[in-house]
């Protein structure tokens, strides 16, 4: 276990990746973190400041200067960001000016914290420096990867609070990152265990959130090294949902635990976005403008796998972009051009992906309506022009019409991979009716096309619904009163289907019906994540459990003026 954590620490790529876990680690060790990593403000060499008992039992103030990986000669000296310069700045500026008055009597430990090792050629310099500058008041400590790993095992992941069975699940999840399904299954077990453990008290909830955060970090870093981020992506989705489930009873409370829990949850969101961005921004988006690039990059021998992967990634682009948009909104920095541009870039990349991976015009499973809706929502919030989205939806509608009429690769109601893989198993009417018994995707596409006044295409879909798909139950899904407890637990049996949507009566009737269903619904606004403004959580839950996106998210934008 220690080796696993040690390797994780050594693999941290950015300094701020150590930032992300060290405060939690210190808190769990009994320290009081008095200064956290921040951006844009002068820290005078100190990344984290905490007060706590030293090994000798004396209460001291610990000033951490963080560094990623190994410490090399280049890191030690020679530029303003070098360690020596930072240590000098701590002594010269921080200690003299920034230590809060109430801690000024405490002795000081300046800690050089890093994930790897201090290389031999630096050791003498470090030794010389610390000997020369150690005083009665100021001491120096080396917190290398080995020490931090030991502290993690002694602290946040100690056996008393992370029992053996959960440690085992965690180890297996890390070991199997190359097999995302298996890794995720083990991590899910860990998450559920932490959820159960956290249900005892507010303190336990905070601890569970921190444990989940560090475990997820370790999984992520290992997966990043292994070149497969699928398991941590899915793990971070379920982690977010499970932790929200823990957090939601304490919403609105002002206690320290409630604040700590909220902070931990925000860290989880940030971690989720870090993972999602690492996956999407670094691995997918750079190749979105290559014709058939993404389709080829998947080692698939079957068109179904290409199709499923393309829609999955489009859904993730939508969801990640929506989280970014939410962060932008939440920060209140309306003028944050970089973040706003980030959202626009996601939309642009999504359209590039669609254009260059044409399977995205041909959904094969009705459940892909969720991915479509997520990207549509992102587009809606991005303020970009409608031309590409209209063209995408129209072509998709045309292809679905063709596939249904030719009894080819039309989208199936079933989400089971076996059914999708064997399709079309036969050409009989009975099979066709069975495999197209219900659809939430067609009403979604039709509603949007109607909003874009694409009368011809809408008419075509209406005719299709009337002639070929008369047997199909057109529907949408909304959360109901049970969803509050089940939506974030990954349960499937909740919510209500608004069905018998009048698709064959044209787009306007359809929109009106959906709008009326949303207007009369009283459950959606009561969902904790909606009520508290954490609405992307509902989308994450829908994405994770493959539920259709509730129309409440988009109906306002689609309703004709005056309705």
């Amino acid at each position: 276990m220690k080796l696993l954590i040690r390797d994780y620490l050594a693999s941290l790529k950015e300094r701020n990746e150590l930032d992300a876990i060290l405060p939690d680690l210190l808190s769990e060790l009994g320290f009081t973190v008095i200064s956290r990593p921040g951006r844009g403000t002068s820290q005078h060499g100190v990344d984290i400041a905490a007060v706590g008992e030293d090994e000798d039992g004396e209460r001291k103030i610990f000033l951490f200067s963080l560094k990623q990986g190994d410490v090399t000669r280049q890191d030690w000296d020679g530029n303003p960001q070098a360690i020596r310069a930072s240590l000098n700045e701590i002594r010269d500026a921080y200690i003299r000016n920034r230590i809060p008055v109430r801690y000024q009597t405490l002795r000081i430990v300046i800690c050089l914290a890093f994930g790897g090792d201090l290389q031999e050629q630096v050791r003498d310099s470090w030794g010389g420096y610390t000997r020369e500058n150690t005083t009665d008041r100021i001491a120096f400590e080396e917190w290398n990867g080995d020490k931090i790993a030991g502290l993690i095992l002694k602290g946040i992941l100690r056996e008393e609070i992370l029992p053996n069975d959960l440690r085992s699940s965690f180890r297996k999840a890390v070991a199997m990152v190359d097999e995302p399904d298996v890794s995720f299954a083990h991590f899910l077990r860990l998450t559920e265990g932490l959820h159960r453990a956290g249900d005892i008290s507010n303190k336990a909830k905070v601890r569970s959130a921190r444990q989940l955060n560090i475990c997820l970090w370790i999984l992520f870093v290992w997966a990043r090294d292994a070149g497969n981020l699928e398991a941590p992506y899915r793990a971070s989705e379920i982690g977010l949902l499970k932790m929200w489930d823990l957090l939601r009873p304490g919403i609105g409370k002002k206690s320290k635990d409630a604040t700590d829990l909220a902070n931990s949850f925000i860290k989880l969101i940030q971690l989720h976005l870090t993972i999602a961005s690492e996956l999407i921004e670094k691995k997918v988006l750079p190749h979105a403008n290559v014709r058939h690039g993404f389709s080829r990059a998947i080692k698939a021998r079957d068109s179904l796998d290409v199709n499923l992967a393309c829609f999955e990634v489009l859904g993730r682009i939508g969801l990640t972009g929506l989280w970014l948009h939410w962060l932008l909104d939440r920060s209140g920095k309306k003028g944050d051009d970089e973040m706003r541009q980030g959202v626009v870039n996601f939309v642009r990349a999504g359209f590039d992906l669609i254009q260059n991976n044409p399977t995205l015009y041909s959904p094969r499973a009705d459940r892909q309506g969720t991915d479509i809706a997520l990207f549509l929502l992102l587009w809606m919030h991005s303020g970009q022009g409608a031309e590409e989205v209209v063209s995408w939806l129209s072509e998709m509608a045309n292809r679905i019409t063709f596939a249904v009429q030719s009894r080819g690769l039309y989208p199936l109601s079933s989400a089971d991979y076996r059914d999708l893989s064997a399709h079309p198993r036969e050409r009989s009417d009975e099979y066709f009716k069975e495999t197209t018994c219900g659809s939430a995707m067609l009403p979604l596409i039709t509603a949007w096309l109607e909003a874009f006044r694409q009368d011809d295409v809408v008419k075509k879909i209406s005719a299709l619904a009337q002639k070929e798909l008369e047997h199909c139950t057109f529907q949408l899904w909304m959360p109901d009163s049970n969803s509050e407890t089940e939506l974030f637990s990954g349960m499937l049996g909740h919510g209500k289907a608004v069905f018998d949507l009048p698709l064959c009566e044209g787009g306007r009737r359809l929109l009106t019906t959906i709008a009326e269903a949303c207007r009369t619904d009283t459950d959606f606004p009561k969902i904790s994540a909606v009520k508290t403004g954490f609405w992307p959580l509902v989308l994450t839950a829908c994405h994770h459990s493959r539920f259709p996106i509730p129309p409440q998210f988009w109906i306002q934008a689609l309703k004709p003026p005056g309705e």
Partner: protein
Amino acid sequence: MTELPSSQVLIALAENDQLVEAMARRIELGDPDAAQDVVKHWAEFHNTHAIDLLQVVERGQIQRLPSHKFFLAMSFLCKILPELDAPSQRMMSCVEALVAHAGDDLAATQPNGALREWFVRWPEKSREVISASMAGNDLASRHLTFALEALGDAAEARKMALSYSDVRQLSAITALGRIIHVDHASSLDTLATFTRIMENHPGDEVRACMLVSTMAILARWPQTDPAIAAPLVDGFLKDQGPITLHHAARALWVDEITSQEDVLNCLLKALESVDPTHKGTLEELDHGLFRLMGSGSSAASISFVTKFFSSGSDNLDFENFENFTASLVSGPTERLHRVVVEWLLLGNTPLCLGLARALEGNGMEGPSLDVGPEILSIPSLTQEFLCRKAIGWFFHKPRTATSILVSVLRVCDEETAGKVGDLLAEMMLLNFGCMKDYLTGLPSDDPARSHVDRALERNNSYLEALRAVPDINEFDPSESQLQIQQAHQRNQMREVGKLAMDKSIFSKICRTATLLYGNRGQSFIREAQGHLRPVEMEMKSFGVTFETPRLEIIDPIKLDYTLRVFRSERLEK
């Protein structure tokens, strides 16, 4: 020298009802000359009343034999029948019983042949039967053809054909086709008789009989004036029924038909209305067209097939014309190329589909069709249309489709070359890596070279960009999904294997042995003296490989749509 069985032995066999068993064993005689001696020997015993060979039929002894023995015994008996002195009624009854018992077997009519020989051997019996038939004897009427044929009396046959309108008329007409007329004038008399019969608007069966007899006469007398023959045949085929059409199809088999072009045209015109559900007639037609392809009338044959499949009937299936197709594909390449271009431009589904199925070569890639410039001297728009059709129909035989595109590129103008180049790059090269090898292998002085090079360059850029994209492992199908896929593929392959086995000629003629281990097999054959002779077999693997079109994986619905459009679009007139 084999010793013949003595009369005592024969009598003993007859008395013990073992005669038919002996017949089935052919008296253990392998030597044909010896068998001939036995035939004479047995006939003599019959004719001297020592034994009664017809009794083996009359008592049902031969009919009670197991099927294979029955045919062996019948065949032996048929050799003896012509030699037997017997009343015609008995003889005809026996023959009829044997034919009836033989059922649908190809050898079922062998006793009729024996009866014909019997009539030749005993002409007075023929006259007796003709008289009996005239008197209304049903049995005699049913065997009238053989009696008339044996006598070779065309005048008598013509008379009977005109005098009756029942089975006797059919028998007489049939006999007229078989009788060797003494001279051309006599054959013309027969044709004139048929013209007179036609005046009474006979039914389908009579017309069919007259058609068959007429074709036989024309085969023997090819100098017959087409002005006589063609209207007569045309008359038979006007408002014809299915039997006449069936025989019209069979008439195409007659070699000499090619010298009677007008008659051939009459037949082919009538055959355009064959009911596609009449598989037997289609089979005859296929054989006939195959004969025409090899006998200087290929143009008529191809033209017929083109018209036949352009009729718009839903039930037409090119698979019914496999002999014709085989002849077309294996015949002169220039002829094949013309047909390919003509049919693609016509865009008729069964024709194009039939072509696509028939073209074989280079494994799954299909043969290369280097269509000559004289065939491709068509308007630019038509050239482009031809390319789209070639892709639509021959997409899964990429070399065939590509070679047609290259053929067009050799002769077309710059604007068309641009469009055809797009098709080459976007449809063929993008989908099939193997086409790159084919195209790079074209000679440097090939007129299409520059256009082909541009398409190859485009393809290279596309592939280079693709190669620069690293694998993204996150979205790989999971292990369980791969297992589902593999199970699905295994099931599909099993089905394909079963289908192949069902269609394989080997599975019908060979016994299957499944070797679970090793790559060689050994079995033993027990020889006459009980000696075991080893037979060894070296096992070889066999298989076919084909390239899955890239778009089949990346964008199957669009590919399907595009190919359907290419197949179904029509040129505006």
